[in-house]
């Protein structure tokens, strides 16, 4: 009957109950949805980072990361290839690249780019570029003068498919090296900055242009399971001479994403708390109003022999019911919203410039984590009951004589 009494009491003022329930629903919904949105965002930041040439692990010549100059290339890549073939797990993919800073120019414009020399077949299995070409075609193994550039670069340079693009960089003799390429493919990437930054030529074309012979800037490895990264990286470190090579995992290579990941849980919980504080004021206010409207009734209950603790329990039961109903509706709404957006994602194209600055994709696909949903519900439930103790204690403190005389 206690539950029944609580249930009927909360519906004595349906409008007030509806208003506070809406507050709880919106609060829970926003916690779940924003949690999933941020999870999706961070997941895509990691995926984009890994797919945009970073991979899970990279091997460089020692000192390359501090000074990515052409002289810091690996002159004997076969040593590394042999180690990779022996130590990467089955299902892993890897490729070799030449990567240098260069200046791209055509008749109208010029600008800094990163020249990436790739093995087209292997690269397609490791990074985004294999599936990113939207116009023209991807590089073939013998595309000696072909170049694949991003849509944004094409737009910036006011050029198009089939036009020439001249690349200039420093070769191994520290002389200016230049070569004219013809645009054979145009790619589209998650982020506009990627389209403007990277231009792709074949590995042999890059090596010839830069007089690298067989030299390689980096090996990039993608593992079947991201969680094996540390173990594989350690094995590679142990197998390669440390005086010549250095091995980095994606966390080392994407420090901003790594830092964001570390802070992410804290951000989410702070968000939960902020939402709850707003909701908590509503809960306290509503419960207090309900208590003060029923002072005589609490006086009666005490006169009948109800102990203060029983009255506290009664008021908390009402809050419990409100919270459970609000949470149920908020969860359903949150899950439905996430499900509805999981296919098409949330298009942030309108904010592309700002989003890119923060390394965020144009389209965010929310990702729901049971842990986030559980914590959001626990925050609302436990803190909701805790803040209800204050009005409940108020109700329990009324003396029967004063309360019964209350009009």
């Amino acid at each position, binding site marked *: *009957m206690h539950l029944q009494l609580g249930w*009927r009491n909360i519906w004595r003022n349906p409008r007030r109950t509806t208003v506070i329930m809406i507050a709880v629903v919106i609060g829970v919904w926003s916690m779940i949805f924003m949690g999933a949105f941020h999870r999706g965002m961070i997941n895509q930041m990691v995926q984009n980072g890994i797919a945009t040439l970073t991979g899970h692990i990279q091997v460089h010549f020692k000192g390359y990361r501090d000074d990515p100059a052409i002289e810091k290339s690996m002159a004997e890549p076969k040593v590394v290839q042999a180690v990779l073939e022996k130590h990467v797990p089955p299902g892993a993919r890897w490729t070799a690249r030449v990567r240098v800073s260069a200046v791209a120019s055509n008749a109208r414009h010029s600008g800094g780019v990163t020249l990436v020399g790739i093995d087209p077949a292997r690269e397609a299995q490791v990074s985004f570029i294999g599936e990113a070409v939207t116009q023209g075609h991807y590089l073939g193994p013998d595309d000696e003068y072909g170049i694949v550039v991003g849509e944004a670069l094409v737009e910036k340079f006011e050029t198009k498919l089939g036009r020439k693009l001249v690349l200039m960089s420093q070769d191994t003799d520290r002389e200016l090296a230049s070569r004219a390429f013809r645009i054979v493919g145009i790619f589209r990437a998650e982020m506009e900055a990627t389209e403007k930054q990277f231009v792709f030529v074949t590995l042999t074309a890059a090596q010839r242009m830069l007089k690298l012979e067989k030299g390689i800037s980096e090996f990039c490895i993608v593992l079947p399971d991201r969680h094996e990264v540390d173990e594989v990286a350690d094995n590679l470190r142990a197998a390669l001479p440390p005086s010549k090579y250095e091995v980095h995992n994606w966390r080392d290579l994407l420090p901003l994403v790594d830092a964001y990941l570390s802070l992410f849980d804290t951000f989410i919980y702070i968000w939960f708390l902020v939402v709850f504080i707003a909701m908590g004021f509503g809960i306290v206010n509503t419960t207090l109003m309900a208590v003060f409207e029923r002072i005589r009734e609490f006086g*009666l209950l005490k006169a009948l*022999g109800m102990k203060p603790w029983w009255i506290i329990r009664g008021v908390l039961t009402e809050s419990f019911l409100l919270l459970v109903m609000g949470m149920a509706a908020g969860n359903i709404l949150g899950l439905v919203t996430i499900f509805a957006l999981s296919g098409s994602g949330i298009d942030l194209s309108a904010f592309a410039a700002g989003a890119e600055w923060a390394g965020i994709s144009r389209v965010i696909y929310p990702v729901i984590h049971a842990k986030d949903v559980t914590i959001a519900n626990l925050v609302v439930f436990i803190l909701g009951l805790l803040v209800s103790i204050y009005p409940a204690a108020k109700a329990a403190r009324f*003396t029967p004589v004063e309360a019964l005389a209350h009009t």
Partner: protein
Amino acid sequence: MSIVECVDIKKTYDQGKVEVEALRGVSLSIDTGGFMALAGPSGSGKTTMLNIMGGLDSPDSGSVVVDEHHYDQMNQSELASLRLHKVGFVFQAYNLIPVLSALENVEFVMLLQGVPQAERRERAETILNDVGLKGMYDRRPAELSGGQQQRVAVARAIVSNPAIVLADEPTANLDSKTGQGLLEMMREMNEKRSVTFVFSTHDQMVMDYARRLVQLRDGLIVDDRVKET
């Protein structure tokens, strides 16, 4: 045998700058099975006396013993427990729980006492039948007349077989016919179930029904007479 024993009860209320002496040394003994009215004009102290006998308020001095329980030796929790098991209340404004039906209002006290559901239901239905509310079990207070609500209040007060029922001006909000019906019913309960009733009232009809009439004035008993039956 006395069910209530009050000795030299004094109570003063502090109302801002004014102190009001509600009771100035009242001693009263009430026998088991009594049907007694505390009468007097407004401010004579009858409600204060009722509240003190019910353990809702405490005297400044003097002692109260109800069914061998000494109030001055009990804390608030023990007093609440005593009210739950030994004292029934009937208020002028009925004071039923508005969201509960007549049957549930009567059951509620037994629920607090921990009486099993089936027994609660049976006892509540029996008592509602006894007070003339058969077939009105599921009606909520708003769906009952004043007299019917007060009958539910009486049923609630006596359903748990208390040692004493304290009724504070129970007929004040009722018309005379309804009030008379209620008094008839309470006297029947008194005779049938040997429940001790104490009323505070300034209603002549209640005084006429009472077997013992105690008159209060300015916080003192000025008359105490038992009527011949």
